[in-house]
């Protein structure tokens, strides 16, 4: 039996009476300290600064947010230690559908009403599970993937690991993905699917296929998951990413728009939506969404240089040059000084586009580096666009060829074609495409 007199609890609920009820339950178990949080931002702040041993979180948090969204944000930004027990408390039996489907799940959930001894029983079991996986958590924190996988493999073979088989397999697949072993992760997810058609395993399989650039197969796995599980938002994000790589930005935007409406405060998703809209040529949506992100994403450090560049990009796309210049002026001196080459390339290109007098010299000064160093696709697109406007065909074609020869060719194809067409160079672009295709064949 676990000694709860040494455990710190955090109760998260926006309703005062419900918080009191949960506190009473925790105290009746002898909890050492019970703290409260009545709002989403406060909960994140408390957990980030001093993670408790146990979190009891209500599913409905008010203000359009849910405990599930909170959990996903905590896990996504690694704010919740693996050792902390997170229990979702709900009167909604429909929450089971969420837990059965999604990848980011709580350690357990409890349907109200429940007695203190039921909570204690569940916590005892969860504590035992956490203890079983503790060596794995430590290896995971050190990014020691080999050790983590070895521990999980041993656990799967042991008697002590029998009650944790599915968790072990899920952790194994996730670790294999982190370690860049997409094929191994694929095999692990397939082994789970042989036992049961679990949506999170099918989404995981889609993810491994996506990583291996087997896009059609990835799409055929993720489509039915998204269709059958409307609350599995991460699956929708994955589908959108696959669609973008397949060169289907319209479908990506449609899917992301649908889930973003249901999770209006998920700004990671909003950024994906802005990207899809921009690739789809829908600069009005990209602009509006990025404005919302910059204005409302209040997580410390959330608004990044990349966000400001994305905002400026969409404003330029809409011909709002003055607004774009103002956005770029938001970059602070320290930010400008510490820009890595990809961001510097984007910054100078976008600055030239919205403020030619300010940006021309800087862009010209960076030209030698832009003709040598490899750049990510988004920076190449910015440079290409600026080069086309400047009339620097050598620079533009260099980056267009690299884009068409790379893995993101399908993703950026509609945008690049549109940029060349706008400069009456559609035929030149077709030639570049042909050259890239020939290079791929001969490779």
């Amino acid at each position: 039996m676990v000694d709860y007199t040494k455990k710190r609890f955090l109760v998260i609920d926006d309703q005062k009476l419900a918080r009191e009820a949960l506190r009473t339950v925790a105290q009746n178990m002898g909890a050492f300290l019970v703290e409260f949080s009545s709002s989403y931002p406060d909960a994140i702040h408390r957990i980030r600064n001093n993670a408790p041993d146990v979190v009891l979180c209500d599913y409905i948090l008010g203000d359009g947010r849910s405990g599930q969204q909170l959990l996903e944000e905590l896990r996504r930004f690694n704010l919740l230690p693996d050792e902390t027990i997170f229990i979702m408390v709900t009167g909604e039996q429909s929450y089971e559908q969420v837990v059965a489907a999604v990848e980011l799940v709580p350690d357990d959930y409890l349907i109200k009403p429940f007695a203190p001894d039921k909570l204690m029983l569940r916590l005892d079991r969860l504590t035992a599970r956490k203890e079983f996986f503790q060596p794995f958590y430590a290896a995971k924190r050190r990014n020691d993937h080999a050790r983590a996988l070895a521990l999980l493999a041993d656990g799967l073979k042991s008697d002590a690991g029998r009650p944790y088989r599915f968790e072990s397999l899920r952790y194994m697949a996730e670790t294999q993905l982190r370690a860049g072993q997409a094929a191994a992760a694929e095999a692990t997810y397939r082994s789970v699917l042989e036992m049961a058609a679990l949506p999170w395993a099918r989404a995981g399989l889609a993810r491994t296929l996506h990583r291996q650039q087997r896009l059609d197969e990835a799409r055929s796995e993720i489509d039915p998951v998204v269709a059958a599980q409307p609350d599995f938002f991460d699956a929708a994000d994955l589908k959108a990413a696959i669609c973008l790589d397949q060169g289907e930005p319209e479908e990506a935007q449609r899917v992301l728009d649908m889930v973003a409406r249901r999770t209006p405060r998920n700004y990671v998703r909003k950024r994906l939506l802005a990207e899809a809209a921009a690739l789809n040529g829908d600069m009005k949506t990209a602009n509006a969404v990025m404005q919302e992100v910059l204005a409302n994403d209040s997580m410390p450090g959330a608004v990044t240089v990349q966000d400001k560049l994305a905002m400026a990009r969409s404003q330029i796309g809409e011909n709002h040059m003055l607004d774009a210049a103002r956005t770029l002026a938001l970059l602070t001196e320290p930010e400008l000084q510490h820009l890595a080459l990809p961001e510097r390339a984007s910054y100078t290109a976008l600055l030239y586009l919205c403020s030619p007098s300010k940006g021309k010299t800087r862009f010209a000064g960076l030209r030698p580096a832009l003709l040598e160093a490899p750049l990510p696709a988004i920076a190449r697109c910015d440079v290409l666009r600026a080069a086309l406007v400047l009339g620097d065909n050598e620079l533009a074609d260099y980056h267009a060829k690299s884009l068409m020869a790379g893995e993101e060719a399908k993703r950026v194809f509609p945008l690049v074609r549109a940029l060349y067409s706008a400069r009456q160079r559609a035929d030149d672009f077709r030639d570049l495409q042909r050259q890239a295709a020939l290079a791929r064949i001969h490779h």
Partner: protein
Amino acid sequence: MQKKWDILAVGVHDTKNQLFQAEAMTADLERRLGVDLGEVRYVIESAAASLSRTLNAYRLFTDERALPLTPVVVADLLDEVALDLRQHLARAGLTLTVDGAVDEQWLLDRERVIMLLDNALQNAGRYARQEIRLSATLADDGLCLRVEDDGPGFDSIPPAHGGVGLMLAERITHLHERQGRHGRLALTNGGALGGACVTFWLP
């Protein structure tokens, strides 16, 4: 249809929230005053369970969605069901034994299976003389969950007055489907204790 469901679900949710507060207050009183209010808490939990059963019945007979299956450690499941009811049955002079060393995970709808077993045990509690047995075994490539009592057994099979509980039990068991096989419910007389025996087989 979704609107009717939402209206029902919101009503049930709000009521269960209030029952939760009542449960917490009762547990607090027990602790502070050192009195046994277990039966009061049992009644509150039964009221909540009854609401859930009604909502479930509505959903299961109108919604085509598959059951949410999650991996559940079978031994833990039995422990939890026993926790819900052991004291209540003891107050009625009945002994509940749990016999199930299936210490591995099975994919099932945990909340609904707990509801099934709670219901079966409560029914057994009405007819048992002294003893009720809850067990889990592996058979026929599936999981057998069994509730047996030492009472007079079923008057007829199927029982004349099966009610919502039996209908729900059959539906929930049937909806547990894996690899083309569906769960089954069986009612028999005899069993290990000589009385009624309810067996849920889940693939």
